[in-house]
């Protein structure tokens, strides 16, 4: 099985780092989600259809959302490629996934700490 390679924007990485420090349970849930995305980013994720964010996909944990693009989907659609225009497109392989946003704003602490 070919695994997808994950790439992340600096901004999304900072959001994740913040979560790791302050909400380990939520961070763990996201790590689990990322693991699944590496194997199959189509399962349990949905594709946005509105003109601005078209073809971006959203994955969810109980508390947080991740917005990403499957690079091969972008490259197969010239309209989407024109919309995204990622500067590093040539450096990311066909099995790449780019994570643009980890929406982890909602009170960046775990709701329930494990005892």
């Amino acid at each position, binding site marked *: 099985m070919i695994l997808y*390679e*994950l*790439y*992340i*924007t*600096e*901004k*999304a*990485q900072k959001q994740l780092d913040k979560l790791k420090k302050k909400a380990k349970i939520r961070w763990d849930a996201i790590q689990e989600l*990322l693991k699944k995305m590496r194997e199959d980013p189509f399962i349990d994720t*949905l*594709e*946005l*259809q*509105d*003109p*601005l*964010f078209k073809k971006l996909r*959203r994955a969810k944990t109980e508390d947080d959302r991740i*917005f990403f693009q499957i690079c091969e989907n972008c490259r197969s659609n010239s309209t989407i490629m024109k919309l*995204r*225009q*990622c*500067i*590093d497109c040539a*450096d*990311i392989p066909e099995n790449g996934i*780019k*994570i*643009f*946003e980890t*929406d982890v*704003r909602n009170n960046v602490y775990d709701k329930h700490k494990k005892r």
Partner: protein
Amino acid sequence: MTSEESLTNKLLLLYLLENAETPMGDTKLHKLAFLSERNMNFQAEKGFNYNFIKLEWGPFSTDLKKDIDELVNLGLISRVVHSPTDRGRFILSTFNNILQRNSSFLDKIQKVNRDYAHLERDELVKIVHDMENPEKPWTTIHNTPKGKYILKRLNYALDDKIFQLTEDEIASLEIYFDQELFDSLVASLEEAKCKPAVVL
């Protein structure tokens, strides 16, 4: 209230204000939303999802008031005297396909706007007061004690016609009705145009 119900409320509220073609305050907006939801409910159509109680100025909904304030704070409708802003209109045009697919709900709003949006607030309040209480049709809204329910949102039922939103439309609307997320996502996409990503 589910996320789907809440998003439907906001989208229909924006549409109501756009279709009315006349800016209006909270009181008038409450009456028009009440009349629209009443007409939907009569046809077992689950569009607006507000509970209304009777107050001095007629039908009032706490959730509707919250939505009005939220749309103002999101910059989607103007403050005090409400009408959609350019951003509000942008959302309506972006999601026009949803509205067209659910046109029977729009028909109810259009009819209410045609019949009542041109009226002065006080005249509209009087007309609504003289209407029968949809929850207790043997009495008028005027004769209903203050604080009592006069319209309740429909619960999901098999024979109801429900405002249709797909999962991806819900996900998109959640972004558009969340300015912070919308701006952040746009900024992230812009960042990707000038900064390379790193391997995770």
